């Protein structure tokens, strides 16, 4: 396996084990599993760290403004503390869920883009390998260049809808692999180059 910054939760996995998707055909094999680069999780990790420290900061700020929160009954303080840490929990849990389940799968038959953009929204884009005409990859920005992640766009024949994978690791390699597969969809890409 190539790129595995988080061994348990890889963002780039060739021939992923113990992984299936809804609507997978009996002979269909997943060749590549792609998620957003782990560094893109930094926004919700930072948000959760800030909320984690709110109970330490707010009493001081309120005291500065003339309100001593220490006079509140202990039970109120306890419940407010629990609510705060529930908020931390939900930021972490939701952040992880969106990252973990927003995947793009490349199988020996098609490209499957699973997108959960918001609560109770599910979008699945399918592109048969035989219909793929063009792939584009873009790496932009300082963070993208440092960590080698970016977007890959897949154009299919005669379709107005294109599949776009966002912030995936090694976008140039992925774009090249998909285009190679489009030419020979039923051959497994055992020669996926290791980086």
């Amino acid at each position, binding site marked *: 396996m190539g790129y595995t910054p988080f061994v348990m*939760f890889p963002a780039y996995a060739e021939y992923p084990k113990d992984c299936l998707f*809804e609507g997978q055909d009996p002979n269909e094999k997943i060749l590549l599993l792609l998620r957003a680069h782990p560094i893109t999780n930094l926004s919700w990790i930072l948000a959760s760290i800030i909320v984690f420290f709110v109970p330490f900061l707010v009493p001081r700020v309120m005291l500065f403004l003339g309100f001593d929160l220490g006079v509140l009954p202990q039970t109120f303080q306890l*419940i407010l503390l629990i609510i705060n840490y*529930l908020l931390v*929990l939900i930021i972490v849990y939701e952040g992880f*869920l969106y990252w973990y*389940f927003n995947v793009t799968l490349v199988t020996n038959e098609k490209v499957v883009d699973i997108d*959960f953009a918001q609560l109770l929204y599910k979008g699945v884009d399918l592109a048969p390998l035989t219909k793929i005409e063009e792939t584009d990859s873009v790496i932009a920005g300082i963070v993208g260049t440092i960590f080698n992640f970016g977007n890959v766009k897949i154009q299919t024949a005669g379709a107005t809808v294109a599949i776009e994978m966002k912030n995936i690791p090694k976008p140039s390699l992925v774009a090249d692999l998909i285009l190679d597969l489009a030419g020979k969809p039923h051959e497994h890409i055992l020669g996926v180059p290791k980086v």
Partner: protein
Amino acid sequence: MEVTSNNFLNSSYVLMFGKGAILLILIFYAIFSLIIIRQVDLMSKTLITKLSPVVRAFAILHAGFAIGLIILTWGIL
């Protein structure tokens, strides 16, 4: 009697209002946690991995905790 910020925060009206506000927040949170169960169910049916049962169990536990917290808050505040 001089009204200071401290006895203002401790007055029964403010505490009653606080209890109502906290309960309302917790009720919304419990509804949200039930929606998360449905969301996780949808997600783990779409992408089936070893982790799917774990995240589903966590969502159910979380919702149970959120509902339990409403009862606890109602009782102790």
